[in-house]
């Protein structure tokens, strides 16, 4: 198990380096220049002055030189400074933002897992009933609704029309910190973030559960006199979860895309908002740093998924 984890971590490191090369090249290929956003448009500047700034920031060097300079610093934990907010370390910016994002994503994920698995089981156990059909229709609507649409609709109904949730931010400005205030701000964006994934998990869970309920060992459990409730949650559920675990692991990357939308709509002070701002101003070090941290999170989550899978299914030998 330990060798497996170490090997996967080493592999993850290689993937991170590959990711950084890709992002680096793509950024330099994209039109736009960080200097344009950096300089004050009201102050006229000569070409020589601009070249001087460029040289000071190291942007005049050839691309491989720039990349390896960045990589060398990154290896020592130095992700450089933001171009736009001079003097602010990228690492600082990222660490400041990662907490809120992790909170939002984790809450959304927990909601979607609980909701998706519960409704999936109900759908399978009461297959073809009104409940099942209703849940399936709801799931299809959920899967087909893009995040930007559900986010805006959610904002409109719950914040503007019914006024039961704050319209944005993570805490009420000026008010002393309280968990209740945080939860009030958290619940709507987290719920909206979970819709798509909950719907997807529900569909997979239902299909997987239906298959498992037809297995011989479920009949064996009934033949032993196991209560129907435990036949479902003990004998069938653990087997039915296996494909769903894989699904959850592989959709977490997708959830990050959704989180960026939700953060923009709800002005949530997380990585998504940081990224969007950084991309708009071509703040290369921030984009690189944020991408790297998100990439590391996705790789860790996938590793966790595999470990969970091995823990649930004794037939899987990780070595």
């Amino acid at each position: 198990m330990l060798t497996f984890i170490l090997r996967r971590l080493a592999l993850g490191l290689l993937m991170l380096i590959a990711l950084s090369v890709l992002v680096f090249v793509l950024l330099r290929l994209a039109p736009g220049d960080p200097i344009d956003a950096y300089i004050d448009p009201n102050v006229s500047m000569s070409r020589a002055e601009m070249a001087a700034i460029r040289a000071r920031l190291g942007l005049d060097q050839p691309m491989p030189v720039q990349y390896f300079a960045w990589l060398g610093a990154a290896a020592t934990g130095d992700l450089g400074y933001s171009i736009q907010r001079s003097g602010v370390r990228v690492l600082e910016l990222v660490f400041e933002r990662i907490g809120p994002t992790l909170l939002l994503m984790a809450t959304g994920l927990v909601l979607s897992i609980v909701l998706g698995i519960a409704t999936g089981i109900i759908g399978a156990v009461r297959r073809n009933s009104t409940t099942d059909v209703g849940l399936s229709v709801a799931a299809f609507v959920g899967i087909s609704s893009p995040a930007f649409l559900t986010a805006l609709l959610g904002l409109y109904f719950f914040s503007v029309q019914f006024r039961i949730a704050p319209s944005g931010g993570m805490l009420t400005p000026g008010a002393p910190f309280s968990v209740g205030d945080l939860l009030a701000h958290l619940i709507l964006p987290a719920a909206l973030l979970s819709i798509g994934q909950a719907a997807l998990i529900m569909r997979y869970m239902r299909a997987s559960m239906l298959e498992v309920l037809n297995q011989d060992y479920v009949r064996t459990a009934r033949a032993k006199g196991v209560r129907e409730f435990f036949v479902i949650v003990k004998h069938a559920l653990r087997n039915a979860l296996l494909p769903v675990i894989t699904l959850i692991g592989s959709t977490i990357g997708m959830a990050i895309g959704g989180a960026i939308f939700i953060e923009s709509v709800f002005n949530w002070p997380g990585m998504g908002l940081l990224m969007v701002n950084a991309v708009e101003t071509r703040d290369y070090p921030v984009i690189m740093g944020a991408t790297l941290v998100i990439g590391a999170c996705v790789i860790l989550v996938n590793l966790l998924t595999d470990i969970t899978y091995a823990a649930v299914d004794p037939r899987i030998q990780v070595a």
Partner: protein
Amino acid sequence: MPEPILDISGLTTVYRIAGKDVAVVQDLDLAIAPGETVALVGESGSGKSVTSLSILRLLPRIGRVAKGSVGFRSKSGVVRDLARLDADALRQVRGNDVGMIFQEPMTSLNPVYTVGEQIAEPIRIHLGKSHKDAAAAAVQLLADVGIPDPARRAKQYPHELSGGMRQRATIAMALACDPALLIADEPTTALDVTIQAQILDLLQQLQAQRGMGILFVTHNLGVVAEIADRVAVMYAGRVVETGRVADVFAHPRHPYTIGLMRSVPRLGEATLLKQAGTPLPTIPGTVPSLARLPQGCSFAPRCSHAIEACRAAVPPLLDTGNDQASRCIRWQEL
């Protein structure tokens, strides 16, 4: 015959297929005495497995017991009709008074729990033992069914055991609460011949120790001869002949039984027949669809003895003497 532990009377089980109820078992009577082994034989689709599933109502969603009674005398001596018992009371009979083993040892064990845990489960449910005591009992049961190194095996998962060992484990699971009746639904069909013989020996040995009745479902007449006291031959959802194994084998009273017995190739027979230029004997035609059974005797279209009267009405089970009965109106002329 002593008080039977199982007394099935007039059992009719239907499957709902394309909006219609199709009878897959019709008007079946069957009794098993304590310590007795009754074999239920027939081809695929004859209703033998459905009969075994009907007893504990473990039928698939489309199936239900439509008519008849399943009288069962529990350990305490109380006779109850399992066909009418409510779900909770029935659950207390399952795995406790009646144990069941299935055809596929590969798929009838849950892959994500250890063998020991699966055997301990009914002990905890029905006998109210603690996790620790039930686990110890499970190890003892594994030893009882002849699994070497039972303490280690109990901690293993089904995929770590061979087919024969898995079937031994399912037997241990079925016997965990010392049931009065064991239902074995083709327990040796999926196994190698040598393992099959071992499992049959084990069942006989356990039966001798515990005195339980066994309902043994099989399509294999050789297995019937080896293990059963009495046999019921099923065809198209009905019992067509029943009696003591030795009597039925010596004097079959139904053309279908005769056909079945002739279809079993004997050692060297194939070579002899080939030299003589005759094919292996088979029963002509195929099993009729249960949704469209022919008028009268279901076997009549495939029977060389069939006459007009056979097609007029379903023949009743006729007493042919010597505790034997046949659903053939011409049994005396066979």
